[in-house]
């Protein structure tokens, strides 16, 4: 079983990666010339606040939105999903893709 110290370290690392994912998503959106409101509207979301929550490193991009989100920011869905996996689940990413 993981010790409380190990658990806290894992949580901090997960938090750091989640913030990195948010920053990456924000850069992609800005490069595509979209505001948070534009992106939310094109994804069919009622409020743009969800985009902000994800870019602030709190939430995760839901799997059902990955493909349209990738298309709107000009990335292939596979690359988009792969990069997000490296932030959200680095252990699985390492098992699948690390040579």
């Amino acid at each position: 079983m993981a010790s409380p110290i190990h658990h806290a370290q894992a949580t901090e690392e997960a938090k750091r990666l989640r913030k990195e994912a948010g920053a990456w998503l924000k850069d992609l959106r800005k490069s595509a010339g979209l505001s948070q409101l534009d992106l939310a509207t094109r994804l069919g979301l009622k409020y743009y606040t969800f985009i902000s929550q994800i870019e602030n490193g709190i939430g995760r991009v839901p799997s059902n939105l990955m493909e349209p989100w990738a298309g709107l920011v000009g990335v292939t869905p596979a690359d988009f999903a792969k990069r997000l996996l490296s932030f959200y689940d680095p252990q699985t990413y390492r098992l699948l893709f690390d040579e």
Partner: protein
Amino acid sequence: MSNVISFPALARRARPRADRGRWSAAELAELMRLFGACCRGYAGAATFETGQTEMGDPQFYVVGTGPDLPCIAFASRIGTSGGHIRYVVQDGSGEVIAEGETAAAAIDIAVSTLASRNRPRRILAYLVRSIAMLLPCGIAREAGWLGDFWIEIADNPLIETLIGYAA
């Protein structure tokens, strides 16, 4: 010369104005009610963070402290930079739980929605706890250790049912 003096600027200043990107003390008090409701329905520990959108609208996030860092719910005040102010409460997946013209109205709805979402889980937890507590009784009954004491408690049909499950 008119002796009527208008004070439009003063009147506007006197109205409580939402600070761009920040929550007021009154709004934070309401948000703490949301935090409490989220904690009651969440099995692990939870914490909260604040942030803002690129338009300067403030956000309040309730986040679980588990390894997956689940966002349990978040609240936003939209329209701060101009236009109609509205409060929106969403769950971690972005689904709108509540909306309102005031923080109190939105959070009232959110708290009751969260409570109704958590109710089935609470009933299940109660049943599991009850069965776990009565498990030794079930074993004792099977082993015939309870004797006369068993006859008294077995009159209750609920206890009988639960012990039946436990055994």
